[in-house]
């Protein structure tokens, strides 16, 4: 009985007009993309440091998001999921051997307007990836350490430790005049 009912439901979905579904899908995809693409792109950039790879990562992340059947509890949950997928995608890229055999052009310098910005940005980008991502998520995206722990899969203590060490490294690189 239930099975037959389910079949009817699936059949109903199957016979829905393709155009209608495509239209609804496109609207929903655009909404998701517009909402998150900046965050995804910027986080990806902190890992790969170049536009082309960041754009590739962004594309893959959104394709995964579109294909994802997960039901998110709230917006924060969805954001966290997307951030986590972005990080995983970026790590996959960094681990790929194709990536290891290439030297990506660092293009972030193009966005710096003052020498101070250049120094600070490059100091952050010189940090190991795990510190870089924590700095980005904490200071730029404004996540709490608990949220970062959830996104990155680390413990909150580990995140706090990494944040502390990252600050120390930045101070070491930029001198005493650097202030968080």
């Amino acid at each position, binding site marked *: 009985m239930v099975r037959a009912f389910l079949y009817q439901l699936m*059949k109903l979905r*199957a016979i829905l007009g393709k155009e209608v579904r495509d239209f609804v899908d496109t609207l929903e995809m655009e909404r998701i993309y*517009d909402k998150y693409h900046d965050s995804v792109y910027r986080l990806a950039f902190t890992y790969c440091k170049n536009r082309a790879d960041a754009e590739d990562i962004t594309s893959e992340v959104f394709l995964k998001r579109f294909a994802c*059947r997960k*039901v998110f509890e709230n917006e924060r949950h969805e954001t966290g999921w997307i951030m986590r997928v972005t990080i995983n995608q970026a790590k996959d890229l960094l681990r790929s051997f194709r990536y290891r055999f290439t030297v990506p052009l660092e293009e972030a310098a193009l966005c710096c307007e003052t020498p101070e*910005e250049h120094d600070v*940005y490059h100091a*952050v980008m010189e940090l190991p990836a795990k510190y870089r991502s924590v*700095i980005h998520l904490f*200071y730029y995206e404004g996540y709490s350490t608990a949220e970062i722990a959830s996104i990155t899969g680390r413990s909150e203590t580990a995140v706090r430790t990494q944040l502390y060490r990252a600050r120390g490294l930045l101070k070491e690189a930029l001198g005493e005049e650097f202030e968080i």
Partner: protein
Amino acid sequence: MKGIQQYCSVVDRLKQDPSCKQEVLARASRKKISVSRRGMITGTAVAAVLLALNIGGGYMLHRSAEESGTVTSEASEELVTAVVTATTAPGTDVTAVVTKAVTDHSAVTKTVTDRQTNTVTTGNQTVQTGTTVPAATTARPETTAASATETTPRTTLTTAAVTEAQTTTVPKKTNAEAAAPEAGTAQRAVFDLHPLSRDYRKAEELGLANNVYYAEPGESFMMELGVRNDPGITNMDLRLTVSPELGLTDLWTSLEYSEYGKLQHLGTSLYYVNTNPEKQEAKAIASVAIITVTAPETPGRYTIKPDPSYSNGMYLDPDWGSPAGYVFYGLDIIVGADGTLPAAAEPFTDQTERTAPPENLTDPERTKYHFGDIQFRYETVEAQPGAKNVPVRFYLEENTGFAGAILTIYDAAGVTPSIEATVTGYAGCERVKLDDGDLFGAVQASYNEDEMETRLVFGTEDGLDTTQVGLAFTLYFDISDRVKPGQQLVFGFYPLDISDENGVDITERCATVFGGIKIVDNTKPMRISDDLPIYRF
């Protein structure tokens, strides 16, 4: 003054090229991705509500990026000699030897001896033999029908008999008969591929091997993999032979089997069900999965059918001691139909009595049915329930040269990797205990508990021959107490990224051959690895 605000200012100015948005949307459209909560609202969302109410019968809200990609089956056209184990034990009724010709689907030779009816079936023909299959028969896999008969001499299945069978026409056993329970045995499971909510012609009624669906050129429809008389599947490695013109997308897992969604599209046409232990119950009728199929524009006949050469087994029942054969009806998709039906053929019928693990898995020569320029294989070992640190060695058998590789290994049900140490800086992952092999530098391993996936990264060391073969590495696993003697734990084992010295992706040239961990009786002395034949290079 320098501050973190300056970092934020720079990041603020990072803007993605606006054209990327259209590109992503176009790719999503090409992949026929449908946004879940809106596009599927009329079907899946309601089904999900039903499932949430524990009504059952719905489909998993689960799909990975890999699954969403269009699947073609180029590799399926490269099938090599089939190796299907047919093993029977005293008191059993049937034995089957199935062979399959290299790369030629039409040349499938199937030899089935049925003790009940004393018939020999070859291809789509059946003859009476007048002989009785001895009860205790172990048919080892062979590469030709003739050699197969050598392993079952008491069946009087000679080459001549096979030849005669090929040329003699007699009324063949109907599919219904094939699927019907035999006296003294459990009912045989019947797998069935058919379009969902569309009219199609049933193989059982037509006496064909496959259901028949007449599709419009370019039509997309949902195809269900259903099963009847399921005795309680624990694992199912299902390899489908798919006409390369067909596109397979949108794999939906049925919650009736896999609460944590381990039905996956892996590689070209391989689906793996790792059943939730709580779902391992007998079912009269159930649905395993729904897959979206896109027919080509070109008129013709296109087929999706099981690949009997995939000898890890369509499924393993909870204990190997009970009869667990199955019948599988595939699906013929006819585009530009003129109303003619495909030629008659028997459905693939596995009548194997799984009273013992397949012998062929211990013999490396018989497991080489995937070929590639670079070929990995992992061995078959034996272990008792609850065993700790069971080593499984991974070999590189064929190697035309590569610089580095990333492999992924999905855990089998019933094993967990032995944890050695935590690797810092790798989110959510812990290191699997692992010994480096002879060939490479340090092998980096990470384990993702959520995905039950181990990833291995390694590269050849400078100055070493990149084409050498041998032991690549060894992984260690803990065996669950809940596994039963006779079970075969098989890992998913796939290359993710293999590059040559110039960084060129050569992943598609890589093949993997599966082994497994056989669970043996607690009361017997345990043998692990060293007692079993290991392929030396």
